[in-house]
């Protein structure tokens, strides 16, 4: 007995690492779900952090529960970090799957392709049809069937300190080179003599911000040639963008070496403490800016510039899709809830509460006519997404692109590392 327990203990230690790995992946199954509307169900909805305002959440819950007496709808808020592995395991079993899920648009192609989501093609017209954001419909479709509907979109704009620009006699930059020059002048000027001052707050870890440089120069993260994907960071266009970025990180920004993803996702913090002259953020970050700065009229915003100054630049197309898990036991009711999500009140909440451009563009007018909304809509219109490749989510979770831009922020070799990253992307994107 004694000996057995000792052996058991040793076995436990050794096998735990392996066992823990697998305990999370349950048996896959895709059948036995109900499309009926009469059986009450407890719907579970996964929304991502900062996506859906409290008001909109409360509205959805109440509307749904009023309409379907006996059923409930619970919203569980999820963190972006690590969501892909979480979805992979949760969606795979009818016991653990949420019924409705929000998917980052960059992750949507992967989940559409592997059969994790219910086919929504039949209700596409009802959800908005031709008014649905086209790029998001593309990312949410596989083999001409729509599995994930456009939820909302958003793109970054540049926020700046008007008073600092004025003091140093600077104008709003029209080209990317001018942006670097302006950032450099603010940084050397350091009007408030702040010890941690950076001309522009642009952390290396925020690769999605850096995409604007790549896309505006005509570069792409990966391109499809004759049915095969190829990493695109080594292309002359991307390399030009990286040279511009590293120039900025050398003279106009001290924040390239920031590697903490939490700090990266809150670019307004440094701006609020007077430690940055500019930051690259979303329109709804305006609400996070210190009131004193706003009230004193010190905050302005402009679109990301283009290389030649003849147009608006091309920032990354942020946004989400919304889908129903194929393993959901209440797909019928989930579809009803999805209809509520695409109804006018809920869609308008995106614009009025969150500052996102709603998935159904018919309701985008709710964003308003002010300067901020105009700049935002312009940014979204010119935005470019990540490749609509089935395996893109795997590139993301392998952190190929993130690691690359962190290295660029630390001013490491752009040519060699781009080659390595491209090879890795090519391998992942073309694997079955």
């Amino acid at each position, binding site marked *: *007995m*004694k*000996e*057995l327990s*000792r*052996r*058991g203990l*040793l*076995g*436990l*230690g*050794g*096998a*735990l*690492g*392996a*066992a823990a*790995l*697998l*305990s*999370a*992946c349950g048996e*896959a*199954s*895709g059948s036995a779900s109900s499309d009926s509307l009469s059986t009450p169900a407890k719907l579970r909805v996964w929304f991502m952090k900062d996506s859906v305002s409290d008001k909109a959440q409360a509205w959805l819950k109440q509307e749904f529960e009023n309409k379907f007496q006996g059923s409930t709808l619970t919203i569980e808020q999820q963190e972006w*970090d690590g969501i*892909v*592995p979480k979805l*992979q*395991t949760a*969606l*795979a079993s009818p016991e653990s799957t949420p019924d409705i899920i929000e998917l980052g648009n960059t992750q949507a192609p*992967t989940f559409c392709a*592997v*059969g*994790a989501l219910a086919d929504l093609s039949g209700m596409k017209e009802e959800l908005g049809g031709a008014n649905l954001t086209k790029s998001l419909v593309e990312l949410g479709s596989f083999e001409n069937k729509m599995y994930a509907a456009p939820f909302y979109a958003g793109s970054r704009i540049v926020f700046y300190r008007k008073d600092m620009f004025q003091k140093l006699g600077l104008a709003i930059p029209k080209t990317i080179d001018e942006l670097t020059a302006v950032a450099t002048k603010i940084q050397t000027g350091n009007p408030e003599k702040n010890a*941690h001052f950076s001309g522009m707050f642009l952390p*290396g*870890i925020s690769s999605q911000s850096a995409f604007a440089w790549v896309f505006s120069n005509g570069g792409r993260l990966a391109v499809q040639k004759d049915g095969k994907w190829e990493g695109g960071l080594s292309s002359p266009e991307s390399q030009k963008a990286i040279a511009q970025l590293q120039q900025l990180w050398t003279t106009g920004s001290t924040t390239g*070496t*920031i*590697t*903490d*993803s*939490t700090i990266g996702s809150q670019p307004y913090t440094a701006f609020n403490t007077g430690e940055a002259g500019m930051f690259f953020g979303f329109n709804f970050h305006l609400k996070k800016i210190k009131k004193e700065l706003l009230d004193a009229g010190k905050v302005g915003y402009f679109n990301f510039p283009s290389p030649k100054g003849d147009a608006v630049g091309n920032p990354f197309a942020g946004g989400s899709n919304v889908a129903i898990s*194929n393993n959901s036991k209440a797909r019928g009711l989930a579809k009803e809830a999805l209809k509520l999500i695409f109804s006018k009140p809920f869609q308008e909440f995106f614009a009025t509460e969150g500052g996102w451009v709603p998935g159904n563009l018919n309701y985008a007018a709710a964003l308003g006519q002010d300067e901020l909304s105009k700049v935002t809509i312009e940014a979204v219109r010119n935005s470019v997404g990540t490749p609509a490749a089935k395996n893109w*989510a*795997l590139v993301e*979770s*392998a*952190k190929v692109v*993130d*690691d690359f831009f*962190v*290295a660029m922020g*630390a001013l490491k070799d752009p040519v060699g590392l781009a080659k390595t990253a491209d090879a890795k992307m090519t391998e*992942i994107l073309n*694997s*079955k």
Partner: protein
Amino acid sequence: MTVTSTRAKPEGTLPDRTEPAAPRKRRRNPLPYILLLPAVLIVLVDMGYPLLRQITMAFQHFSLEQQFGKPAEFVGLDNFTRVLGDSAFWLTLGRSLAFCLVCAALTMAIGIGGALLLTKLSRPVSVFVQAAMLLAWAMPVLSSLQVFQWIFDSRSGVVDWTLAGLGMQGMAGYNWFSNPLTFFAVAAILVIWMSVPLVVFMVYASVTQIDESMLEASTLDGANGWKQFREITVPTIAPVLLLVTILEIIWDLRVFTQIFILQKNGGITEQTNVLGTYVYQVGLSGGDYGVASATALIMLLITLLLTWRYVTQFLKQGEV
């Protein structure tokens, strides 16, 4: 207790008890085995099933599509050749082994030293030290991770501030997590900090069991402290030392949480992967469960190889 009472019944007569045949009878009695059954079942279901599943998956092509219902196809040793042919795996393996051995060695050294020190301390001080260690040991790993991240924060961390204050100008605002070497230094400090208390407690408990008279006698014979430690203390507590060393090696080889969380802070995932995070990245994030299972099996094999000598020795000693 139940065992002995039921055993008494069939034996009935007195003389039987002294006969050497008694052990054979004990073996025939099914009750001990029935009593063992629940524990064995739990182990089988809890660990046997996942292990079996993992072994199967290691020989299958199992990616996201299979996870969502597509039948998996057997591919022989494909997954293994892919892992073993991947240079990233070998780099990760080397990194993991180095990290594990350094951490385990330092933990043992500091732990044993601490335990011996405890025996020399006055009672109140010793109780205080033990209480502090217990707190460190009982602290949830995520909380201590958060504290360590604050301590080593590049902007407001106390370490950078102190080093800069001491005149090391380059250390002001230094990002510890963006360089693989300093990344692992911080991770090692954290891992060692969390595992030293257990070593101290176990070694201290066994050291206090050493016969005082033996030590006294050796002093009279002229043995110094180091000699006493080598000739008396170590041989006496060897079983405990072996057990703790095995556990430390296993734990440090499959370290996951600390590295995984710190990676979120560091942004250089590939250069800081250890076996645990590598398997996670290939399997759960990368959606390649087959290759991940094969990697995990290799990892299990390495753990067994590393600890084999200790395990056999330990089992031999356990029989005495």
